[in-house]
């Protein structure tokens, strides 16, 4: 079962999205909507097409057929420059944070501000300090290189960088993969608090994950992707009671 939402409540709308690489179908006619101002998680086994889907939502890959409307606009109709501009509506926390190696934590968060705003150094320092503190990074870690930070701290810095330009959609790619249980909880709490804190100005969160427990705990909606198809899309509370055998198999693994 796939939930449907009113057009006004939809942040991302995927219609008949198909992607094939050399006749190998990765995404097969996907149809689903991601609701605004909510946390939605897409679950799935490895190789189900989650990362490919994420790249389509960002316009990093073009589909074989189908459309993706983000905030009401078909992103595949944009030219390269328009798409680049439009991507600033997104913030993304990568699986391993993807911090720039040669930049300190502070410089990583300052990077998008230096690229896309007219802020002077004082404004950048203030904004970056606020963002880093809001994600739980202490002053003494501001000027450490990513290699000197723990996995959890790198995720926090990655989140601060993703939020720097005030995105309307936050994407999380496997945010808890490879983390210990305590750091996993910390990252999940951070996702929830970020969503709550920014909900007033409208922040939609989309998580790509295979962590069932965490997804059910923090999400408003959960979808299940299998072999390029969304086979289930339900409110988190109902997802666990899904009668779909694949979903039950995944939950009970």
């Amino acid at each position, binding site marked *: 079962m796939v939930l449907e939402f009113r057009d006004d409540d939809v942040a991302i709308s995927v219609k008949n999205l198909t992607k094939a690489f050399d006749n190998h179908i990765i995404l097969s006619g996907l149809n689903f909507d991601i609701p605004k101002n909510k946390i939605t998680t897409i679950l799935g086994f490895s190789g189900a097409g989650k990362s490919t889907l994420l790249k389509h939502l960002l316009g990093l890959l073009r589909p074989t057929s189908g459309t993706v409307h983000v905030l009401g606009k078909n992103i595949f109709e944009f030219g390269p420059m328009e798409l*680049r501009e439009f*991507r600033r509506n997104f913030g993304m926390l990568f699986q391993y944070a993807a911090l720039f190696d040669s930049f300190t934590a502070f410089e990583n968060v300052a990077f998008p501000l230096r690229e896309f705003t007219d802020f002077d150094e004082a404004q950048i320092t203030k904004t970056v300090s606020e963002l880093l503190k809001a994600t739980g990074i202490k002053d003494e870690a501001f000027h450490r290189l990513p290699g000197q930070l723990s996995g959890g701290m790198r995720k926090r810095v990655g989140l601060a960088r993703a939020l720097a330009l005030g995105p309307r959609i936050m994407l999380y790619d496997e945010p808890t993969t490879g983390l210990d249980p305590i750091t996993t909880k910390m990252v999940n709490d951070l996702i929830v608090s970020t969503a709550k804190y920014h909900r007033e100005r409208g922040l939609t969160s989309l998580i790509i994950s295979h962590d069932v427990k965490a997804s059910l705990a923090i999400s408003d909606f959960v979808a299940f992707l299998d072999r390029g198809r969304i086979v289930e899309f339900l409110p988190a509370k109902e997802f666990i009671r899904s009668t779909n055998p694949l979903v039950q198999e995944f939950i009970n693994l």
Partner: protein
Amino acid sequence: MLARIDWYSKHYVAVFGAILIYFLRELGKFTSFMGRFFYWVIRPPFRWNLFFEQFYFIGNKSLMIICLAGAFTGMVMAYQVYFGFKMINVDSLVGPVVTIALAKELGPVLTGLIVAGRAGAAMAAQIGTMKVTEQVDALEVMGVDSYQYLAVPRILAATISVPMLNMIFLLVGNGGSWFVGTKALMIDEALYLSKLSQFVYMEDLLQGMIKSIVFGFVVATIGTYFGFEVSKGAEGVGKGTNQAVVWGMMIVLILDYFLTSFLIRLL
């Protein structure tokens, strides 16, 4: 093994086709890469900080090795030329012969090879590592063109710094040749210098400079291209770095022949 050879002999059309398709696909990717470079090189934002960072890395950090290579190349050339020329009693021409060889061939080629081994490899490794750790994706998601941010400053910096390194190579190489010629081989110093001014022309220097500009551009383009082509983790980074060095050096040597045959007619 025999079965494989048998298969190839029976399916030579298929093998030829596969090689042709591979070649065309790679050529297409490289052309697209070059297209993005030329698209972005003339468009803002111009990243001067990154350009100077790379200029420092390629230029200043290669200085020591260029000086060493230049000095010893000049010295050894002086020895070799001297003992050859001595037999026909024209040992006073050691200076101009070594200078012309350094200016036209050895300077640009050795500088190109050194930069390919040092900076070309580093470019492929840096960009490749950024690619496999999703840093390149992070740039794209933020709306920063990764080619403009990573490739353009490197290619421009190499195109400008390699001819400068070549000039230094030439200067130091000549110093080495002068030192060996006049101090060790006892060629008269005034004669050595007068023959230099008599037989070395600006065209000789210009030919080497044009070559080194081309080599700088090519080595950096190959280094960054293979960096962007990296996939499959640490193994991919190693492979990309290796390919950048091998292809960079090969292309320098191959291009040298074609540039020489072209420039000899032109200048």
